């Protein structure tokens, strides 16, 4: 009985190949977008883990040289002898024929637990590592080092990207840095009663373990990606929901017959679930494979994005990871379950003797549309409540979900309203029929149009967010990169002479003085600024008090970055302890995009009092003759070209990095819109057979098939247009929530929102084009429907 029943159930799909294709491809596309994003996330996270495990970056406190970039090995020995549990690290780059490779030397015997170089594998022993010299690197780096070093190279895919790890002694040889170290890692547990650091060496500064500053940012980026992946998945699920609903409606008759012939309801429902799980697994597998392709295409951009924005390394290659295979398959099954739950529930509760007539057209009839509208209203109310009282990133995404789902549920009601309005304006009988028929089509197309609404709104929202980010970021670059040249001294000793030369030859000299510290519990950079016209004319604040720069110049106030202000819960007028014993009121809050650390800026003189040993080795220079000054610096001071960087180059580089930042999001936008167009196509194709009985009377009364086809096309475009017009304010609302709520919760700063009408107009055109393209084939099919098919509608003996 089971096999016979299953054969009957499956025969539906065999006879309705297009519907089967819509189901499998919709689910596969949805899974592909989801798993593609997950693959990127999993890969990026694995790269961070590798970097963290191999380099211990951020996990542990570190001792860094107060000036320069080297520590004498004797200092390390002195610290160890006095009881400090420190482990040496030496870093540097070596040249190979294929570019430069970063070498990191560690001491595995003293390194804290998690800073293991890599797994000792391929028969490599600790003895090998310490004595003969072995380098561990990922395949690409290993290839690069092949002819550059004499030591044995062990390939380890878990090694951090772009890095070769080795014993500290080997690193000192390779980097020609005998007797020196870059930094010392502090073990988390330190013995009691050890002497003060300053008592052993005043030349080192302690940098506490980073709280997850960079982690928070990268997590936010991943969260955004995941949110967009989920949104794309939701668009796909609308297709699947539409297809499953239609298929189940069409199978009501079969279900009734099967039950009348003696198939128990429980067995029938069980078989339908099994059938759907089978399809979900097939579609899930296809989707995960497609997702792999999407991830492989996008991953280099993601790597560029993360590296550019947050300095996090991500390998540019993709590995097959069990977790995203599993998550892809699971989401396909769960998504199918969500899409099919309602249909299965209906089947389970359908009386055996109820009408077997398909009810697809009643899916979102007037009463249903009003009911959905009421649910939408409820969701909007929850959203408003969250906006007023809510806090936290998770609630931010709940708010987004309430808005988007609410708007989708409201759509049938709005479309019916719009069509009714148009109907009242119609004068000719043909147009009256057209609008009446369009109103009848709204329920059948609702799910596909909801998918289009979500896709377009996501597109508007994300583009508004990214473009607002870009406009703000360009302003920010103009502000921060105002000096025409940035000049580096070779060392601290050269600095005073260089500064004197610059003062004589430039309009304004801005020494770049900074120290890494902790302000109000937030890891931050403290800057000493020479207040002058550049600061006064170029800096734009998020919040400010009167006479900002005068007060800073008098040493009476500080300027802090928005990240620091928000994370420390401070704002203008509050006092901030910028250094032990020095607390200053905050005169202004400045935006500092993309920086995981906080920033505080005080007057140069106050800074020098706090850190008398800190000498500026970099200067920003304002000049009207950048080329002339560059020439003088090379010829008279003897600086190398590399020590002089012109602002335009940095700006171009920064912009380039930024432009790549959201390429991934852009690609997801395009894909999501394509999926929505696919939803419309599939919806129209699967409904086409149900349309024949509705159009046949119009044909019989004298409308040509060609005209009917044209009207079908027009109908799809009109419904898509109303949907897109609705999607624009929804998208702007989405952008506003992303910029003013989610961004603050995730990144710690708020972005001003800009509106881009040109883009929205273009997007509307694209959406209409997508709808028209999707409707073209079904309309052509209709225009070519043989008269015999249309006549069947009127035949009694069928």
């Amino acid at each position, binding site marked *: *009985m089971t096999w016979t029943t299953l054969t*009957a159930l499956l*025969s539906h799909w065999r006879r309705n190949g297009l519907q089967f294709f819509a189901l499998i491809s919709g689910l596969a596309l949805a899974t592909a977008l989801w798993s593609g994003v997950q693959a990127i996330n999993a890969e990026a996270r694995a790269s961070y883990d590798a970097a963290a495990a191999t380099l211990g970056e951020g996990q542990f406190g570190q001792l860094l040289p107060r000036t320069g970039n080297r520590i004498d090995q004797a200092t390390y020995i002195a610290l160890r002898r006095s009881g400090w549990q420190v482990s040496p690290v030496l870093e540097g780059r070596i040249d190979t024929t294929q570019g430069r490779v970063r070498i990191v030397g560690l001491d595995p015997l003293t390194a804290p637990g998690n800073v293991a170089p890599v797994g000792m594998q391929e028969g490599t022993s600790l003895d090998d590592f310490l004595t003969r010299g072995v380098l561990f690197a990922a395949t690409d780096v290993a290839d690069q080092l092949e002819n550059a070093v004499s030591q044995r190279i062990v390939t380890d895919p878990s090694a951090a990207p772009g890095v070769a790890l080795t014993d500290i002694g080997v690193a000192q040889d390779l980097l020609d840095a005998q007797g020196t170290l870059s930094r010392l890692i502090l073990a988390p547990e330190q013995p009691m009663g050890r002497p003060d650091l300053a008592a052993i060496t005043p030349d080192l500064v302690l940098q506490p373990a980073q709280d997850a500053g960079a982690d928070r940012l990268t997590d936010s980026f991943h969260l955004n990606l995941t949110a967009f992946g989920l949104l794309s998945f939701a668009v796909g699920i609308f297709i699947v929901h539409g297809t499953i609903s239609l298929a189940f409606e069409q199978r009501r008759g079969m279900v009734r017959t*099967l039950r009348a*012939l003696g*198939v*128990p309801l429980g067995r029938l429902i069980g078989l339908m679930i099994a059938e759907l799980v089978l399809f979900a697994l097939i579609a899930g597998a296809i989707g995960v494979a497609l997702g792999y392709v999407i991830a492989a295409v996008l991953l280099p951009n993601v790597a560029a994005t993360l590296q550019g924005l947050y300095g996090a390394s991500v390998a540019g290659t993709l590995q097959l990871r069990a977790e995203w295979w599993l998550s892809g398959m699971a989401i396909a099954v769960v998504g199918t379950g969500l899409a099919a739950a309602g249909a299965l529930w209906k089947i389970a509760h359908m009386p055996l*003797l109820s009408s077997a007539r398909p009810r697809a057209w009643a899916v979102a009839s007037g009463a249903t549309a009003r009911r959905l509208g009421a649910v939408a209203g409820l969701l909007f109310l929850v959203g408003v409540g969250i906006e007023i009282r809510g806090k936290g990133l998770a609630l931010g995404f709940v708010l987004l979900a309430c808005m988007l789902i609410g708007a989708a549920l409201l759509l049938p009601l709005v479309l019916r309203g719009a069509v009714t309005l148009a109907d009242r304006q119609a004068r000719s009988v043909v147009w009256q029929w057209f609008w009446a028929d369009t109103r009848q089509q709204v329920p059948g197309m609702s799910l596909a149009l909801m998918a289009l609404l979500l896709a377009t709104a996501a597109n508007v929202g994300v583009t508004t967010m990214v473009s607002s980010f870009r406009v703000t970021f360009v302003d920010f670059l103009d502000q921060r990169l105002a000096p025409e040249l940035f000049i580096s001294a070779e060392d601290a000793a050269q600095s005073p002479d260089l500064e004197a030369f610059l003062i004589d030859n430039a309009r304004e000299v801005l020494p770049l003085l900074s120290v890494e510290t902790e302000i109000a519990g937030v890891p931050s950079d403290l800057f000493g600024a020479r207040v002058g016209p550049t600061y006064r004319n170029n800096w734009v604040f998020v919040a400010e008090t009167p006479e900002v720069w005068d007060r800073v110049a008098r040493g009476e106030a500080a300027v802090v970055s928005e990240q620091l202000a928000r994370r420390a819960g401070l704002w203008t007028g509050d006092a901030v302890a910028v250094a032990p014993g020095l607390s200053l009121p905050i005169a202004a809050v400045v935006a500092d995009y993309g920086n995981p650390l906080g920033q505080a800026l005080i007057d140069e003189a106050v800074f020098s009092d706090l850190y008398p040993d800190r000498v500026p080795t970099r200067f920003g220079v304002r000049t009207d003759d950048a080329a002339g000054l560059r020439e003088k610096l090379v010829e008279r001071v003897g600086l190398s070209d590399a020590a002089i960087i012109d602002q335009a180059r940095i700006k171009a580089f920064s912009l380039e990095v930024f432009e790549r930042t959201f390429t991934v999001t852009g690609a997801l936008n395009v894909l999501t819109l394509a999926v929505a167009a696919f939803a419309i196509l599939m919806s129209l194709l699967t409904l086409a057979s149900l349309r024949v009985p509705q159009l046949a009377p119009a044909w019989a009364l004298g409308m040509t098939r060609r005209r009917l086809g044209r009207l079908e096309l027009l109908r799809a475009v009109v419904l898509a247009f109303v949907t897109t017009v609705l999607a624009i304010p929804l998208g702007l609302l989405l952008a506003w929530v992303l910029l003013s709520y989610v961004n603050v919760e995730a990144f710690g700063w708020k972005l001003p929102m800009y509106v881009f009408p040109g883009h929205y107009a273009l997007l509307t055109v694209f959406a209409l084009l997508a709808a028209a393209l999707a409707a073209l084939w079904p309309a052509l099919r209709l225009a070519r429907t043989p008269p015999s098919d249309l006549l069947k509608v009127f035949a009694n*003996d069928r």
Partner: protein
Amino acid sequence: MLTVQDVTKTFAGGEGDLPVLRGVSLSLDRNETLALTGESGSGKSTLLHLIGGLDTVGSGAIEIDGRDITKMTDSDRAALRRTDVGVIFQQFNLIPSLTVAANMAFQARLAGRYDADQAARMSDALGLTPHLDKYPEALSGGQQQRVAIGRTLVARPKLVLADEPTGNLDEATARQVLDQMLDLVTETGAALLMVTHSQSVARRMKRQVHLSQGRVA
């Protein structure tokens, strides 16, 4: 074979409960054919559905082969329909995605007693052999009804219930289909209970029971 004892059935309506059957009793032996006639709304189809276990009685008993189906669970009644009772509907209720051959074999396969030779004889007798590979949508109404009859009889049920099986067919086709059905029922030894409006169809049965306002008249 079949005993219906004092069966009642009431449906809930907008203006209160609506009694459809008010204590109906009848019986049917093996190899016997019975026509259930009556005006619209007299409860003919409801009684047929109750006997087929497609709906549950308000009160009374229905025994098929000595087993009271009113005391059976849903799945027991489903099993009964699979093996002992065949229902032929006015709307054919074929499975549109299966071929004629698969539709005809379907109930016999569900019952676990499909016999290919017998199915071939049945399709010959019903004139369906040239259409075995077609789908129901390609057949005329009379042909589809023949497939529905074939589906029931290939499964060899003890009791055949037919709800106006010729109601949708023209007179000539109806007569032809009815002849074939009666011949085949006789050949398989089943009992046949047929709901019909048509007196000419009713006269072809051995016995007739007339229902009026939910009672046997």
